[in-house]
Every structure is written in C-alpha cells, then in structure tokens.
C-alpha cells in the first residue's frame, strides 16, 4: 500500500469524494490555486474547477453560513477554516443553524456539510494559530465532531464525514499534517463515525486520547511498558457521539484510566469522559480517573508552547501514579 502523510490522505479523500459525487464542493480561504495554506486541497481546483473548489472572501462566518445554505439545497459542502483560532465566528451558524436545521424543520431541510480545520499547537505558528477547543463543539447537539490521528483514519473518517447526512466538524491535527506517515489505500472505503480505535491492548491501565496527543500518549505507553505496565491505548477519533462501549469496556478490564488532551483542562472534553466513567464504571475503578491536559491559561505563543502541551513525561508520571493508587 502506498504511504501518505496526513495532508496527502485528506487530499486523497477530498479528491475521491468529489470524484464520486458531483454535489461535493470545497470552499474556504486559499483552497483554490494555493491548495490551502497546508496544501491539503492542492490540485483539487485544477481537477474539479473553480466552481467546485472555491476561494471565498476572508470571512469565516460566511463560510459556515454558505455551507448551511448549500447543504439545504442538496450540495455537500466541505468548508475549510484556515486555523481553529478562526472558527469562532462560525459558532453562531453551527449552533443555531447547521446542527438544528433538520430538527427545526422536522426533517424537511437537512445539512450534510463538513467543516474542516487544523487543530492544535506544536508547529511554532503565530498567535491564535494553536487552538484546540473541541469541547465547545462537542457540547452542541446535532453536530458530529471527528478528529483523526493517522493518515488512514483521516482518509476513512473524512469520507464518512462527507457522506454523512448531518453536519460534521472535522479537526485535523496540525502537528501531524506532515509528521504522520502511513499506508493509505485510496479505495473509497470509509470508517465508522462512532467507533473508537484500540491502538494497543493492555490490561493495567487505559490511556485515552485523540488527535496529535496520541503521539505522546503512545510514547508514554512505551515508557510504561519498560516499567512493566501494560497500557491499553485508545484513540477516541470521534468525540461526538463518542464510543462509550469501547472505552467503558476497556476500563472494565483495566480499572484505571488516564485521559490526555491538549486543550485547557477546565471544561475540556476530558471532563465528559471522566464524568461518564465516574458515573457508569465506578465499581470497576481501582484509581481516580486522571486528566493530563493543557493548562488553564491562554496557550502561549511558540516559545513556551511545548511546556503547555502534555509531555510524554507528564503522561507517564500520571499513569504511574494511577497505577500505584490503591
């Protein structure tokens, strides 16, 4: 199977989706001739024309609102927001319209759109370019929130997101765009939007994460292995709705859990998972569910960002503590 980076895998999925369905339209700032600032849409405008691969004016609210209007007319728009720090003007459209158009009209109008955006820090980008506020999105009923952590999952999940009849926010770990490489078969096969991926089986502790933090989480599992601790590593992949049964099943086995995410701790999506575990799995818990997260401060610019993001060491230390708890 051919190797692809995350960028290439997403590009393949977009091309495939546009190929097989003339209703798929890609829009956003610089997605055309420039192929996106990360080159994710490279070549698409040439292949599918400027009407279907469309450079919008610089206006994020507009991009999200256009998607709603297009989708209501039966197109399948895939909007791009250049960085997650610029997604906030879309929230009105996501909360008040995209996520509820089907419900508001009792199924008469629907909103099969995807909004893609790079997610997270770690590439020494300028101010406001390092956001990871997936928890806000996960709170919105009617939305789906997806975040792949490998090229293959990016390909399969994006295809699923585009084919899904409801609105999906698709978060792309910026830090993995070029760093993550893996085999991707461009076979048009999608992956389920409600399934977590068990990346590694283990019986002592469950480590759950998503997006770029899977990297440090997996590395922490390696460290733990050398201590004789067998960690099960779960990539949540879809945050909303998330796959409780895989997660709770794992915890039924291990009794211990560390949740890792890059976003600020307070009211981050880790809280939802920890709360769910605490409510449904208390009897099987052998130790407190622990979150290793970004800090409750503004994510610093490039010079300090590495201290903000959970490190392998922080994760491993927390996991050891959880394992020692009795």
């Amino acid at each position, binding site marked *: 199977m051919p190797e692809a980076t995350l960028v290439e895998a997403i590009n393949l999925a977009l091309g495939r989706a546009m190929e097989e369905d003339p209703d798929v*339209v890609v829009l956003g700032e610089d997605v055309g001739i420039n192929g996106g600032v990360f080159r994710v849409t490279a070549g698409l405008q040439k292949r599918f024309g400027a*009407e*279907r691969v469309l450079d*919008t*004016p610089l*206006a994020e*609210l*507009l991009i*999200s*609102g*256009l*998607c*709603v*209007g*297009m*989708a*209501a*007319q*039966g*197109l399948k*728009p895939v909007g791009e927001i250049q960085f997650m720090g610029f997604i906030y003007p879309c929230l*009105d*459209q996501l909360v*008040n*319209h995209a996520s509820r158009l*089907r*419900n*508001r*009209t*009792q*199924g*008469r*109008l*629907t909103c099969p759109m995807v909004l893609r955006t790079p997610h997270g820090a770690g590439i020494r980008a300028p101010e406001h370019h390092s956001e990871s506020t997936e928890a806000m999105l996960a709170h919105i*009923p*009617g939305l789906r929130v997806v975040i792949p952590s490998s090229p293959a999952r990016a390909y399969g999940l994006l295809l699923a997101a585009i084919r*899904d*009849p*409801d609105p999906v926010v698709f978060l792309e770990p910026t830090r993995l765009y070029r760093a993550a490489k893996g085999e991707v078969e461009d076979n048009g096969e999608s992956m389920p939007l*409600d399934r977590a991926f068990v990346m590694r089986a283990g019986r002592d502790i469950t480590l759950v994460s998503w997006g770029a933090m899977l990297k440090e989480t997996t590395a922490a599992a390696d460290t733990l292995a050398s201590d004789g601790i067998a960690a099960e590593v779960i990539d949540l992949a879809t945050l909303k*709705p*998330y796959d*409780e049964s895989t997660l709770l099943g794992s915890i039924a086995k291990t009794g211990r859990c560390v949740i890792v995410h890059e976003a600020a701790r307070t009211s981050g999506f880790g809280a939802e998972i920890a709360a769910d575990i605490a409510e449904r799995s208390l009897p099987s818990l052998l130790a407190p569910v622990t979150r290793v997260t970004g800090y409750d401060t503004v994510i610093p610019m490039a010079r300090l960002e590495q201290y903000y993001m959970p490190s392998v060491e922080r994760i491993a230390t927390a996991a050891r503590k959880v394992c020692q708890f009795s």
Partner: protein
Amino acid sequence: MASRRVNQDLPVIARFEVRHRNYLAPDGSIARPLPAFTSDAKLLIALYRSMVFVRLFDRKAVALQRTGRLGTYAVSLGQEAVSVGIASAMREEDVLLPSYRDNGALLWRGVKPEEILLFWSGDERGNRFSSGPAHDFPFCVPVGSQAPHAAGVAYALKLRKEPRVAVCLFGDGATSKGDVYEAMNFAGVHKLPAVFIATNNQWAISVPLRLQTACETLAQKAIAAGFAGEQVDGSDVVAMHAATEEAIAAARDGEGPRFIEAVTYRLGDHTTSDDASRYRSVDEVQAHWKEEPIARLRAYLVSRKMWSKADEEQLAAECHERVEQAAERYLATAPRRPETMFDHLYAELPEAYASQRRELAGEHDA
C-alpha cells in the same frame, strides 16, 4: 454628507446613486405611471385579498396569544405590502429565506395558516410546510443569520445552472449585522441569483433607524457589496411587486444580485411581548397610519371601480372564516410526544443518545 467632505480638489474615480420607486401615493392616487402588470385586475385583487387576509390572520394570532393559546407573536401590521409584494413576484421554484415577520410571504407561498400558528405556539412541526414549497427556509429568528444561507442557496442554484433565485428578507436592524454584509459581498463577487430585501420599518424593537446607521438610505448598503440597490415605498404593494419582479428577473438572467430597501412602518408592537408606547409616540404611529398599504390599494381599486363595498364585506367574511378554521385546526393539533424531540436530531439517532430518548419515553433502560 454630514461630515466635512473629502478634499474636493481630488479627481472623482467612481460615482454611485440610489433611486426611489413609488407608484401609488398614500391616498391611492397615481404618483407615477404604473407598471404594465397593473392592467391585470386579477393580480391586483389577489394582492389586495392577500394583504387583508394577512392582517386578519395577525389579529387572530394576537387574540390567541392574549388568551394564552399561542406564544410570543410578531405582527406585520402596516407591512403587509412588503411580504405580499415580494412573494407574489416569486416563482414557486424560487427559494424564500424569510425573517420572523414575513407571515404574508409564507401564506402567499402556500404555507398553511395553522402551521404558522403551530410554529408560534412553540412547535417545530410548524416548519414542515406540508403544503408550501418544500425548499423554502423556515422563519429565521437570529437576526440576519439567514443571509449567508441565501448566498449559499444561490451559489448552489448557479452551480447547477438552475434558473431559480434566492430571495432573502430581513429588517433594518439586520442591516447592521456583519452576516448580511458578508453574504451580500459574496453574492456580488459571484454574481449570484439572489435578491436581498431589507424591510425598513424604521424600528428594531426600540432602536430607531438613526441609531442603527448613519446612512441616509439603506439602499446604499449594496454599494459596499458591489451591486445596485434601490429604495422602494414598501407600503405600496405595486412598487414592491414591481421592484422584486425586476430584481428577480435580472438575477434569473444571470445579472447578479440586487438589493431592495422597502421603506415602511411597523404600526404594531414589535411582538406581543413588547410595548411600543415605551419608546415612540402615539402621534408618530398615527401619522404612519395614513400611509398604510391596505387602505392605499383599496382606494386605488375603488377609484378604478375594481372593488366595491360588497366585495369588501364578502372578503371580510371569507377571511374570517378561513382564519377561524385555521385556528381550529391549529388548536386541534395533537401535541407531540416528548421523546420526539430526538426524532430529527440526526438522520439516525446515535446509540449514545438513544437511551435518553427511551428515558423520555418512559422506557427505562435495563
């Protein structure tokens, strides 16, 4: 212009103008030569009947609200010519994106009055439009947020080369929202088949137009989007119909978007939750009663012998009957079961939320 003007020695590189449209004067006399369609008596009478129906429908809705049988309701008293003039100039396949005060447009488009009542009672089923154009958007409550949808719809229509037009309605207050500006600017770039219409009823709840913008016309807002705007007497249904028809025709012919400012007046309270006497004088309202659209068109029709007292009485009876029957059908609508609040959340309810639906249905999970 209010402020000191830009250095007058400099050369002018662009000029713009705003025109005004009015055919029927407030007393029903002819202010300027009428457009051709006015020779179609059937159409004029249909416009008249529709406006009268809207007014009675509004009155009934308020009565229902006052007696606790309807939720907050937004009357269009004084603005009937806007909704009706616009809707009557659209084709069925065109797409309407209405604001919450455009009952008249929905009714003309064929939405059942009982569905409109159902919506205002706080029931999502009111947006099903079981008999109207299935592609129309429901009332939009977040002010101005429907404008980007209109641009998206129009883009889809253009992409598919369908000869259809998106018609987007909003108020003077909405013109202050970036949503509307961003959408119009985009429509300009792609010469989309879209018509944007601002109903300038002078007030956004208690905020008068002069606190909304320093512009002397709203029509000039289109200049910033790179296309033409015109100002229309929005209490003159002939002018509204004519302006909309021209704008839609141009849009349908691929000439791009248009903007219309419909100048009218909200004779009623903002909604049934509002008390307009707190912020505007009775005199101001009284003065505007002289311009209202129904008496104006009636005066014209009567002067042309196209309408009689008997017609009026018959119409009143008919409208009364239709409104009462609609109200009865509305009141007889069986309530939704609580768990149905999950039924149109997603195409298929994810298992993660299915247990919540079961809880609401009184089925307890094992």
